[in-house]
């Protein structure tokens, strides 16, 4: 495998070859600085669908993807979350063998795609970004067309039924709404009954109702045991669908894990809000108990909850002090807050 590294002394970029687990000694040709480059060991877990190691993509001086590594397990929905221009599509297109990486290794179902991509073509289904099919074919014809490319073909009727396209099957693609077109795009990705489905920004440009429909179908894919690699810049989409989330920013993965792991690790915990509280003295009582309390602009009292047992503590205090309030709600840190904390920018602003 190849790895592109930067000399820490003169910032010169070097290309180094080595095998997984190998430590290679390197001398910078520009400044003579000596160093070592470690090639990570390739995990060969049987339940890995996709393994990416030190993947890098350069366009001249621009580093679009900066030596990222991650692992996608079989049967999970893996969300690749980041603002537009973060490197999501470049990464997924390198995994799909549409773009050539500058360096790094990609394995799909245990096969190195650099040399064995033809062997995995039958096992993957892809919805490219902003995909549009043939305008003057009906939905059924479109599915038959793409399915004719494969040796193993899924039952077209079953796909139409599963994607809820029965009433549209004889309509021309050009006459479908945006949501239906995306649904057909997902259906096309399923014509070969793939093990892994790549969906690149599947709900971009859709209205909220259509977006929700697409989410339901993606959730249905997981229920059928498919591995779904989802790229998105919608945090709600990742929160709703993903088992595992990798957040990418400026070509680097800045956080990775399940939603719970990410909120636990990078989130501010939960906030308990006491609305329209008549007894303001309770603020001092809560602070005396070691809780972080602040008053919001509308007068609501917000209590930061570091761990869930403290919720019961707060409720006990409110009951004991006979506090008069209108309502209580608890909200958890979301991905938007995590992204803000990690990058200093809101996800939407970064997009």
């Amino acid at each position: 495998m190849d790895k592109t590294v930067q000399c820490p002394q003169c910032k010169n970029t070097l290309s180094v070859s080595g095998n997984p687990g190998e430590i290679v000694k390197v001398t910078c040709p520009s400044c003579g600085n000596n160093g070592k480059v470690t090639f990570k060991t390739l995990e060969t877990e049987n339940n890995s669908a996709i393994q990416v190691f030190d993947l890098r993509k350069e366009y001249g001086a621009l580093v679009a993807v900066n030596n990222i590594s991650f692992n996608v397990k079989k049967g999970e929905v893996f969300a690749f979350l980041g603002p537009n221009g973060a490197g999501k599509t470049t990464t997924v297109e390198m995994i799909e063998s549409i773009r050539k990486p500058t360096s790094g290794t990609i394995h799909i179902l245990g096969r190195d795609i650099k040399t064995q991509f033809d062997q995995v073509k039958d096992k993957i289904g892809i919805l490219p970004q902003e995909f549009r099919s043939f305008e003057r074919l009906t939905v059924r014809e479109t599915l038959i067309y793409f399915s004719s490319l494969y040796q193993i073909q899924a039952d077209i009727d079953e796909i139409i039924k599963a994607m809820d396209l029965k009433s549209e099957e004889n309509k021309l693609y050009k006459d479908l709404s945006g949501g239906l077109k995306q649904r057909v795009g997902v259906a096309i990705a399923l014509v070969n009954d793939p093990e892994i489905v790549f969906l690149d920004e599947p709900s971009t440009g859709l209205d909220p109702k259509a977006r929700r429909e697409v989410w339901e179908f993606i959730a249905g894919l997981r229920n059928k045991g498919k591995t779904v690699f989802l790229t998105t810049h919608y945090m709600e989409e990742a929160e709703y669908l993903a088992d595992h989330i990798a957040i990418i920013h400026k070509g680097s993965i800045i956080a990775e894990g399940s939603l719970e792991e990410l909120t636990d690790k990078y989130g501010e915990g939960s906030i308990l809000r006491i609305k329209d509280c008549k007894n303001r003295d309770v603020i001092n009582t809560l602070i005396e108990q070691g809780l972080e309390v602040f008053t919001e602009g509308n007068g609501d009292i917000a209590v930061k909850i570091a761990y869930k047992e403290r919720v019961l503590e707060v409720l006990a205090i409110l009951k004991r002090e006979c506090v008069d309030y209108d309502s209580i709600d608890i909200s958890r840190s979301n991905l938007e807050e995590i992204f803000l904390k990690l990058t200093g920018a809101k996800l939407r602003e970064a997009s």
Partner: protein
Amino acid sequence: MNLKFIKTDLIYAVKGWLRSKGTVFWTILFPILLIMIFGAIFSESGDVSYELVLQDLDGSDESGNFTTFLDETNIFELKNIEEDVDISDYMKEEDISVGLQIPDDFQMMIQQIKFNPMAKVNLTFYHDPSDNTVSPVVRSVLSGLINNYNDMITLSPSVVGMEVKSTLGEDFDFIDFFVPGMIGFTIMTSMVYGSIERNTKLRKDGILRKLLTMPVTRSEWILSKMLFMLFLSFISTFVVIAVGMLVWGLNIQINIFFFIIVICTSFMFSGLGMIVGRFVKEEETADMAGGAITFPMMFLAGTFFPLEQMPEFLQSVAQILPLYYVNEGLRNAMIYLDMDKTLFFTGFVVTFALAFFIVGVLLQKWKED
């Protein structure tokens, strides 16, 4: 080779094409309109008089009567020349494109009709084939007048006939010249535009990216698309020929060279379209790129007008345009039936086809940078 996919692709491409009224219009009706319009423009007679060189080799009373008959129609401005003058040379010197020669047995044959019903005498019609406007009109007017003259003198429609001779040694009407050019032109436009638009649209729609991840090779894909393009080429070709025959009385010969040239032309201009399509990223620019190639070539390659009517330096330009060889190859194969020239031009067409198509296929790129 995934024949199942190639078959499916071809069937659905034809289905999709039939569902697009605009595309069907441009493929079928556009050549019909062009051939009707151009045919009408260059075949109309109008209320004008034409200079006609007249050479009376008989010098008899009967030939004198015929000359007076022509003169009194006021259609012709007659230029009488002596018997010993070469009529072709005279026409070239005086820049007159039509002439009529009365043979020396004109009176004798007309008199024989009383005894021999099979007697016949032919006038000789000389014309310059590079003049596409006057020559066909005068020829058809003369035919009508000769019929009238036959009725007048003998009540027999056939005693006086007309034999047509070209001053250039070739014999064809403008429509004969025009139809092969029209075939070359329609194949060129549908192949060039089709290839460029297909490449840019499929790239923009993500279909090329998707195909890259599917079990289909570039050669299978290009082969299936070429079969569809050949289908379009033959449709437009036969539309042009059918209209030419039905409306303008086109007389052509379909032979193996005709098919070779049509097939090679399709590959040639598809290859050219693929080469250009490789560099055209936007769908909006595809039309302009197609126009930039087809329009200059259409006018400079002798599609609608003979090269002889163009300035000499433009005639030299035509020699490097592939459409010129297609046009001339088709004319010689279908109309003039000149096998030497057919082979010569077909050789160029095959060479251009191989060069453009191979380069086009090599330049085809599905992968992104």
